[in-house]
């Protein structure tokens, strides 16, 4: 081992006893090595002052339960970053599972497109009907008008078809002109569309009589409502307790991590003090030696 390697090992106190003793002897005789050792100890003490900032991390691995097939098997595709507590570097976005984002974006685009194109989809006895564009405006207007002018004219399929033209042609209450007329649409077209609408509604009612019945008969009693509210409250309390426990665990972990970091800093500080002391000590020793040598010479 060359002297510089020995010097570094001695500097970091990582030497066998025999090597240490040998280097001690060398240091005693070599002022240059002694000075270099002290200088490097000083550099080490200065290095302690450089500490990194303490960011608030707050990112954790979380699993998306809806995608995972096996609860015990972590799949990285299902693991995403949890909400950071502060800041948001650009790359954090990359942790977000792209599939969910794409699905949300696609839904938004479809919804916007449907809104612009005024797409309507109906199903009835004559199959599915899709209407797009501004043509959808007329039946909508006609329906509004029909309901306003003659709400009692739609009890069933049979009467509805007959009543619709009359409803469409009748003047609106309060002297308001019919929307279809105001827009210059032929009343016969409106009547035909209203007939079609009535037929569709009747078909819908016939197709789901039991569902409507169940809805109307399923009004819960007050006791049932109170019981449900209590259940919801209990669930909410349980959830809050769980979240509280999670937060407490997080705080404990943070405190523990901080304690470890503090201990490391304290150790580094002690090392610096030790280096300073040994530097001063070496200076004193040199001074003492010098005085002794001078005294001896005198």
């Amino acid at each position, binding site marked *: 081992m060359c002297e510089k390697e020995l010097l*570094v090992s001695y500097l*970091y106190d990582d030497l066998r006893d025999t090597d240490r003793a040998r280097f001690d002897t060398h240091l005693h005789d070599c002022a240059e090595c002694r000075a270099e050792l002290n200088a490097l100890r000083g550099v*080490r003490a200065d*290095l302690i002052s450089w500490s990194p900032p303490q960011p608030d991390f707050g990112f954790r*691995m979380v699993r998306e339960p809806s995608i995972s097939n096996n609860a015990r098997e*972590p799949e990285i595709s299902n693991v995403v970053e949890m909400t950071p507590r502060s800041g948001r570097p650009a790359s*954090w976005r990359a942790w977000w599972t792209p599939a969910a984002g794409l699905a949300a974006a696609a839904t938004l685009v479809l919804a916007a497109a449907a809104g612009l194109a005024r797409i309507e989809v109906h199903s009835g006895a004559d199959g599915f009907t899709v209407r797009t564009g501004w043509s959808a405006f007329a039946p909508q207007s006609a329906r509004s008008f029909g309901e306003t002018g003659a709400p009692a004219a739609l009890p069933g399929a049979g009467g509805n078809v007959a009543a619709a033209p009359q409803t469409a042609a009748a003047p609106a209450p309060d002297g308001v002109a019919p929307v279809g007329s105001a827009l210059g649409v032929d009343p016969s077209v409106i009547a035909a569309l209203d007939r079609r609408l009535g037929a569709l509604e009747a078909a819908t009612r016939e197709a789901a009589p039991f569902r409507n019945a169940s809805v109307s008969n399923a009004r819960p009693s007050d006791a049932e409502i109170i019981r449900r509210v209590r259940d919801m409250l209990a669930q909410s309390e349980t959830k809050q307790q769980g979240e509280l426990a999670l937060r407490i665990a997080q705080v404990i*972990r943070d405190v523990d991590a901080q304690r470890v970091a503090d201990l490391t800093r304290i150790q580094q500080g002690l090392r610096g003090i030790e280096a300073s002391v040994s530097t001063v000590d070496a200076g004193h020793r040199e001074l003492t030696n010098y005085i002794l040598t001078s005294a001896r010479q005198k």
Partner: protein
Amino acid sequence: MASSDEELVAKSQGGDLDSFNQLVVRWERPIYALAYRTIGREEDARDVCQETFLRAFRALKGFKGQAKFSSWLYRITLNLCRDWIRRERRQPIAQAPEGVDLIELASEQTPSESIEDLVARKEISQAVARAMAGLPDDQRTAIILKEYHGLTFQEIADMLDCPLSTVKTRLYQGLSVLRRQLDREGVGRNHV
């Protein structure tokens, strides 16, 4: 009593995400510190820190425990830092403000430390950051691992795939350069 890294790694390998998160909490600060001191940018160091844990999680099945978990993390971090430096095609940046903000400093002041001492400490810190940024990568890495993470010479040699003597040489050369640089700036202790 806190679980050891080995226990948490074993549980994580068995699918326990909470155990892996405990490892994240335990090691995020040292990993961030390593990344920050290596590349010198706060935001990028945080990205490297997150990427380190993400890669570690992906590769967890393949981790057989030949090395310590922390050494494994350090190695991943250093690889990512190396990629960052190569990608950015530049030296690490000493991200230290030019001036000294006394108001900001006052909040960091310890009860036993005068403001003059604090300013001096800040100046030394900035000078060290600049001097470290100017070091060659291998010397800087050796110093960081030894000084700030307390690794043994052998652990550093294993991590950097180089002989023990090379680690010591890099340390000696790096410390000597720092000594000259700090002397030139006239800060810190008298290194002469």
